């Protein structure tokens, strides 16, 4: 008994080849997209990915949600007298934590593109060279807003009522997202320097984890040992958490907001050109 092929057509048929030739010859010859259109197209790509790989967003959202639940109900009574009072203190801080955790993924995603060869494809296109980076950042901003919104919704479900209302929450979220935009350039730089997406993830969380814990996100620094208190007070994440608390509580300190914006601008000024240069070099 002889073997017979179970799939027809070992070679491309003449019809296949004709179809390919038609597709090649019918090619359009447009001018490449301009800088803004290219960046927006890359942002579209980022948003499609949020839709196709929602796990990635879930990963970074579940931890903060667990923090809200555990810290509120385990430590809340002890730390602030009642779980409701602690939730008022904690929630704006967790909003910060949740969004900042998400920024690590900007670096992870860029490194994934790099190791999969997608960056090579983009860099060989006749489009404005920073467009892929800027577009991804714009797409990531949508991700940050989603991560923040989840936390606010969890808070509302647990009985958190922001004194400054919807306006305060939106302002706080906006400020956190602006800061996250600045911080994410640090992780994209890291994403272009390290060898694998996992390395970026590990290094990223090794940095962001202690920085968020050594801040006023969870407890009032006055209870801390003196040197630690000094560090916590200058930690930009503390300032951001305090500003968010202020915005959501209706008693924001303008200085905090200005500091947050300045740090975000500083990070962008240093790390955006660095990322762009590393990206160009390939």
């Amino acid at each position, binding site marked *: 008994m002889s073997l017979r092929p179970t799939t027809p057509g070992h070679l491309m048929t003449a019809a296949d080849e004709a179809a390919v030739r038609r597709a*090649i*010859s019918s090619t359009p*010859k447009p001018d490449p997209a301009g800088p803004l259109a290219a960046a927006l197209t890359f942002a579209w790509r980022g948003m499609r990915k949020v839709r196709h790989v929602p796990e990635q967003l879930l990963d970074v959202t579940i931890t903060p949600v667990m923090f809200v639940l555990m810290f509120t109900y385990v430590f809340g009574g002890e730390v602030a007298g009642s779980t409701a009072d602690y939730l008022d203190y904690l929630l704006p801080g967790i909003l910060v934590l949740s969004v900042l955790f998400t920024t690590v993924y900007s670096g992870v995603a860029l490194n994934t593109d790099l190791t999969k*060869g997608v960056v090579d*494809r983009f*860099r*060989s296109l006749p489009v404005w060279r920073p467009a892929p980076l800027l577009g991804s950042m714009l797409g990531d901003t949508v991700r940050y807003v989603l991560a923040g919104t989840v936390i606010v919704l969890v808070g509302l479900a647990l009985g958190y009522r922001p004194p400054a209302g919807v306006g305060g929450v939106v302002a706080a979220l906006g400020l956190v997202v602006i800061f996250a935009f600045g911080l994410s350039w640090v992780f994209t730089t890291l994403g272009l320097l390290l060898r694998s997406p996992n390395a970026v993830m590990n290094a990223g969380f090794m940095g962001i984890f202690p920085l968020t814990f050594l801040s006023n996100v969870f407890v009032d620094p006055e209870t801390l040992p003196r040197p630690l208190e000094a560090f916590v007070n200058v930690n930009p994440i503390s300032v951001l958490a305090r500003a968010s608390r202020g915005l959501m509580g209706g008693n924001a300190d303008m200085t905090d907001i200005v500091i947050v914006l300045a740090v975000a601008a500083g990070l962008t000024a240093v790390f955006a050109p660095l990322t762009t240069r590393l990206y160009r070099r*390939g």
Partner: protein
Amino acid sequence: MAGAFRGGFTGSVTDPPLAIEATGLVKSFGETRAVDGVDLAVRQGSVYGVLGPNGAGKTTTIRMLATLLRPDGGQARVLGYDVVAEADQVRRAVSLTGQLASVDEDLTGRENLVLLGRLLGLRRPAAKERAAELLEAFGIQAAGGRLVKTYSGGMRRRLDVAASIVVTPRLMFLDEPTTGLDPRSRNQVWGIIRALVAEGTTILLCTQYLEEADQLADGIAVIDHGKVIAEGTPGQLKASVGSGALRVRLLDPSQRPEAERLLERELGAVVREPDPAALSAPCADAGRGALAMAELARASVGIADFSLGQPSLDEVFLALTGHHAEAPAAGEPEPVPGTHRP
């Protein structure tokens, strides 16, 4: 031997203008000179094969020509544009299909094509239409709505090539387009490449397989340790190497030294295959191959099987350089796009 046919196929004044003209290209990574003075001359409308083992410098050469890497030395013009000073013009006219099938795994096949169409300047409806047309032509329309990470290697590669011709380039770089593919997918990719050539696209094809270069290329440069060690048409290359190789597998590996002695006497050089019972020898003439087999039989060397076929890359290297194609040390693969940092 390499010099014997170098320059045999370029240089006539009536030739069409060159699509690629590189002289003395150099690129180092730390201590390693990955590309060490490469010259290339590729005619428009032709398929030019760059043949070499892993780590020979093929990918680095392509990356410099595609403006992804800046050369440390030498210069190159692609379609008349300097790859450093006029990189934008080069990028407008070329496309790159990398070793890794550089498509976005977290998007669908259709989205990948729409993304490139939009970036290359198509409006959304036109980009969608073009994506549909390409998916159909490349036989992946049924999988167009699936995420690319669910694709087989062959489908991924076809999508990759489709992504490179959303707007048909004048010149296409193909870096090992069939490495890791099964024979059927390989034949499909070859068919696509032939169709591209028939429509006038110039192609620079990097490959590890002599057969692939032979099937597709009009000219071949053999590259080793970052240098072009031989250049010519596939016919010239094969003539200098021997149009084929005689492969013999013995019943008893202990007879290999005896068989090696006899084959060397009859055919010249002999290559020991990794299989302890196997040998091969370059063999330009089937008749002489038959005589060599008769000698083995006369000496009572037991033969399990034998064949006469195209020389392997290793045999090409043996013939051209006198040494085997060196496999890179374990854990040191050919630099893959994007993963090596200068």
